[in-house]
């Protein structure tokens, strides 16, 4: 919403400076977005007379002028404008002046050997026009020495406010003035609008043709004919104001509607009566009906729109834009002025659907003052009579002004209760009254009647806002919010919140870099990773590759890794801990922690190094990430099973599933499937692990934080090595489990220190060498006892896995 200071002062009697007005507007909730004060910007530019203009001695295209600037002796200026001549009146800028059109600051110069003390200016140099033809050529009676801006009528600052959608009353300058007056910046001018006395009935009848349930679409439609008008340019003061706020003056009749729109927030429409055939009908548009609108474009309507039609068809899209056919031009002699009320929701929807943004739509979709519909018609009629002459008819009024009266039972204590601000009751009452509310009652409670122009006022809280915003939110002193209980803060994070945080820190500590990737991915990617369900597809994705809610973090990270590789960073280790979606229900959303390594980005380092190059990443690197995560999260891994194979998107032979029993998988690790790499256009190797944090067992609640006593035996442990030859299909884990189980009380650790396949070992066989650590607890073992334990271990491994001891 834009307006000028002088226009505001039509409605507000005030001595306040522009700065105070601007500051107050923002303070009371009418946030000032921009102030354009040309008078201040162009203060240095003065009207000047060119006394002489001689040919420059050293340049064909330059002239050396002497200029009367209105003060002191004439000044010498070198000027390149073709129209510079002695005797002309133009605009002069002295050295030190900033030139907006050229973005320079003038200084005393010497141009081709001649001194120049300032500049004679064109409109473009002042940033006022695109006119490069020459310097401004003013009428000779322009007052030399006076500021040009004032002379040119540019001294009316333009204020633009960012209006919140709840304030339709401030789509008119009168409403803004009312708010300022309530805030103590002057007095609201309340001129009484006298109804226009029309002669004779309006010859055009109006029918509102709606089904009963559609009555709200147009509660009121009023129309008046003015005969014998002379339409031409509107007067200069009106054109200047309209131009200042960015509107293009058209002709008096059209300008009047725009003027009232901004002056009072009351949009109107004018029809050239000669072009309207028969009576007018207000109705829903028919599907497919078309209208050529005033913007020169043809719109195809549906029955969601409301139109005003005559016998030949649609003449106007109600509340949004008039039709070209019956628009007013210089030839108009009889004009029909329309002032109506429209359903805000319908106007908003139609405007959006048609993509039309107009000042009328802006107001109707917020809700205009219903009580001003008829006074608005009178105001417009009066302006038409004043500016264009003519004879008005009586108004024809179809429908009636709806009753929007709301009475709120308001305890004055409500202000303190909600805001903490203790205001004197009279101040609160005066605020409400100056905003147009009627306040009755003298006790602790008042009956407050809201004005017709404030559809946003529903209840007590709204009144509190009115009082507090005018008083100023800055008057509310911050006050500490006491703790609910006067205690040291107790932990507030849930298990999942803690796990999410720990997972991120753990992965980062393992050299992985945290990425945050889109929650939506391409449908093909989602499908590849087990997603792509219709219920998780966006109806209106912002881009084709951001269409489906992600089932896994792997595709986003994998694509990110490849983007980095394409930039020359191939050894990347990325992780993300974030939401994944299995259904559109809240339970379908889980948090996964995913680590991805590409190239040689191993835990120990990447790439070549004098101390040994890093090998390409493999599934065990991913397994290490997964197990480290579980350890960091305090998940007891005693019952954890590592099972060969994983989801389809992992390499079937180089992947594993982590689970607590077959029904409780918690995640996967492994190499990405070669087919997936190909589909994603990614070069491997890429290994990943993905743990579903929601699937992890909850920690057991323990009554104390005590740890069990430490077991520190006094006897030396000893280690025995065994090399078992087994079928290749035997899992090392089974060998370890068997060895461990052979002598539970003595075996405290087993390491696999070698795995070998090849020469010396049978085909389809492998050798797995393990070091078993025995820890005696009550005495040193004898050689015979050690031998017995060793045999027991060998026997048990052989029994469970078919192993033979390698010779």
């Amino acid at each position, binding site marked *: 919403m834009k307006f000028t200071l002088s226009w505001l002062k039509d409605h507000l009697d005030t001595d306040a400076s522009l700065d105070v007005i601007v500051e107050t507007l923002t303070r*009371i*909730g009418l*946030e000032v977005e921009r102030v354009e004060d040309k008078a201040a910007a162009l203060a240095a530019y003065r009207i000047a007379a060119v006394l002489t203009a001689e040919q420059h001695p050293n340049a064909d295209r330059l002239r050396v002028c002497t200029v009367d600037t209105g003060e002191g002796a004439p000044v010498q200026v070198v000027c390149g404008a073709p129209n510079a001549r002695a005797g002309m009146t133009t605009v002069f800028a002295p050295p030190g002046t900033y030139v907006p059109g050229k973005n320079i600051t003038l200084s005393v110069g010497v141009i081709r050997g001649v001194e120049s003390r300032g500049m004679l200016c064109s409109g473009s140099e002042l940033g006022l026009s695109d006119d490069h033809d020459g310097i401004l050529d003013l009428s000779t009676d322009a007052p030399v020495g006076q500021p040009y801006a004032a002379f040119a009528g540019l001294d009316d600052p333009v204020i633009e406010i960012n209006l*919140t*959608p709840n304030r339709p009353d401030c789509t008119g300058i009168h409403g803004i003035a009312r708010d300022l007056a309530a805030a103590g910046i002057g007095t609201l001018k309340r001129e009484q609008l006298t109804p226009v006395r029309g002669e004779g009935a309006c010859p055009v009848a109006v029918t509102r043709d709606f089904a009963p349930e559609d009555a709200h679409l147009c509660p009121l439609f009023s129309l008046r004919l003015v005969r014998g008008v002379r339409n031409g340019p509107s007067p200069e003061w009106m054109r200047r104001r309209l131009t200042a706020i960015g509107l293009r003056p058209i002709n008096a009749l059209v300008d009047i509607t725009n003027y009232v729109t901004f002056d009072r927030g009351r949009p109107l429409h004018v029809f050239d009566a000669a072009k309207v055939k028969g009576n007018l009908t207000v109705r829903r548009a028919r599907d497919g009906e078309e209208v050529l609108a005033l913007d020169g474009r043809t719109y195809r309507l549906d029955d969601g729109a409301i139109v005003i039609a005559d016998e030949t068809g649609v003449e106007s899209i109600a509340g949004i834009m008039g039709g070209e056919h019956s628009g007013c031009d210089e030839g108009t002699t009889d004009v029909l002025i329309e002032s109506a009320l429209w359903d*805000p*929701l319908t106007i908003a*929807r139609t405007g959006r659907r048609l993509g039309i943004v107009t000042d009328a739509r802006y107001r109707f979709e917020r809700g205009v003052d219903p009580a001003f519909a008829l006074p608005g018609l009178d105001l417009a009629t009066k302006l038409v009579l004043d500016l264009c002459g003519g004879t008005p008819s009586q108004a024809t009024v179809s429908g009636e002004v709806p009753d929007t009266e709301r009475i709120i039972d308001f305890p004055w204590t409500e202000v*303190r*209760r*909600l*805001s*903490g*601000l203790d205001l004197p009751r009279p101040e609160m009452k005066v605020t409400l009254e100056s905003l147009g509310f009627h306040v009755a009652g003298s006790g602790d409670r008042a009956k407050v009647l809201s004005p017709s122009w404030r559809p946003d006022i529903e*209840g*007590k*809280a709204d009144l*509190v*806002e009115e009082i*507090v*915003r005018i008083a100023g*939110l800055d008057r*509310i002193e*911050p*006050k500490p*919010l006491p703790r*609910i209980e006067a205690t040291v803060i107790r932990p*507030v*994070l*849930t298990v999942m919140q803690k796990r999410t945080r720990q997972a991120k*820190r*753990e992965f980062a*500590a*393992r050299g992985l*870099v*945290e*990425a*945050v990737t889109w*929650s939506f991915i391409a449908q093909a990617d989602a499908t590849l990773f087990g997603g792509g369900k219709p*219920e998780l597809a*966006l*109806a*209106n994705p*912002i881009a084709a590759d951001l269409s489906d*809610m992600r089932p896994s973090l792997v595709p986003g*990270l994998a694509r*990110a890794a490849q*983007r*980095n590789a394409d*930039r020359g960073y191939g050894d990347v*280790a990325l992780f993300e801990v974030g*939401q994944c*979606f299995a259904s*559109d229900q809240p339970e*379908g*959303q889980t948090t996964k922690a995913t680590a991805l390594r590409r190239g040689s980005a191993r*835990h*120990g*380092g990447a790439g070549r190094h004098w*101390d040994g190059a890093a090998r390409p990443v493999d599934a065990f690197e991913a397994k290490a990430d997964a197990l480290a995560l579980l350890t960091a999260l305090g998940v007891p891994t005693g019952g954890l099973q590592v099972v060969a194979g994983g989801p389809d998107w992992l390499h079937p032979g180089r992947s594993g599933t982590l689970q607590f029993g077959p029904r409780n998988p918690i995640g996967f690790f492994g190499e990405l499937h070669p087919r997936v790499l190909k589909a994603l256009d990614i070069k491997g190797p890429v290994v990943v692990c993905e743990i579903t944090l929601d699937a992890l067992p909850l920690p057991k609640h323990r009554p104390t934080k005590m740890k069990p006593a430490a077991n520190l035996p006094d006897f030396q442990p000893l280690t025995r090595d065994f090399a078992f030859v087994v079928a290749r299909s035997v899992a090392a884990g089974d060998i370890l489990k068997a060895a461990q189980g052979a002598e539970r009380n003595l075996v405290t650790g087993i390491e696999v220190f070698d795995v070998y396949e090849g020469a010396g070992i049978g085909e389809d066989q492998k050798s797995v060498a393990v070091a078993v650590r025995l820890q005696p607890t009550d005495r040193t073992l004898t050689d015979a006892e050690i031998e017995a334990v060793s045999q027991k271990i060998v026997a048990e491994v052989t029994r469970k896995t078919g192993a033979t001891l390698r010779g």
Partner: protein
Amino acid sequence: MTDLTSLETDLLAQVSGAADEASLEGVRVAALGKKGAVSELLKTLGGLSPEARKEQGPLINGLRDRVQGAIQSRRETLAEAALTARLAAERIDVTLPVREGPETRGRIHPITQVMDEITAIFGDMGFSIAEGPDVETDDLNFTALNFPEGHPAREMHDTFFLRPDRDGKRKLLRTHTSPVQVRTMRNVQPPIRVICPGRTYRHDSDQTHTPMFHQVEGLVIDRQANISHLKWILEEFCKAFFEVDSVKMRFRPSFFPFTEPSAEVDIQCSRKGGEIRFGEGDDWLEILGCGMVHPNVLRNCGLDPDTVQGFAWGMGIDRIAMLKYGMPDLRPFFEADVRWLEHYGFRPLDIPSLVGGLTA
């Protein structure tokens, strides 16, 4: 006893002439070994008369001790020389680079770090963290929050919708974390103090907007919470978050469907050479929206607006991260460019806390 004297002279000369441990050992065996010269002399003592033994004993034993001492001393000298020689040979190039450890390479995303900072501050003020799903219903995202039917935010050009289900109902991606407030108010009895951080989505993509971003909202519901408390909380938060001793904030009346009265909050700052500083200067920067929870919202959550009351606020996590840490552009937050992440990310052990300061 010139024999003994010359033997000693001879042995001591051999000791000092031994060039290495092996020859020294040869000297020792020749002198003090079982059949060594000195050992042989010692054996003779047994056959001597007590008088002669009394005379010879100290002489021979003295010889033995001196030779033994000379060998020991020579051994130490040789060992010292050997060590010196070994150390002279053992040299590494200390300028060779070492690999950086994983905890040096890893990074925490600025959004995570800022969320942790926010949690540290509000956790200390007694707030807990409430979370909810990203896929929401129209009711929780709009209707319960007092968005009127036909509000522009409910349109396809502002909000992401999922495809309608069999009943024609369509879910949406939450446009703010306010649905979590509704869930909390419907499930928890006041007093309530929560913050709701999380991912949010709007159908917007340009220089300063991404279709996905992060928000943190706060909610306080009890029997007396009012705007004066709201102002205190937000001022304390801003001071703590931006790590300055004072901030000046400006509360401008504004409008949101879900609060009444509503305000937008600007924070005072200075901008010098592309750097924003808070607690000084005369520029205003909008950082959040807030207000008293609208009576209709309280009613929609089963609360009586005449007996309970409270306030809420919301701000962009990505945005305050940019303000604090100076990222000029929002879009790289979600591009996973490791160069950007290494530069703007945080080290894994830089865990924000109030006692130690949010940042190092």
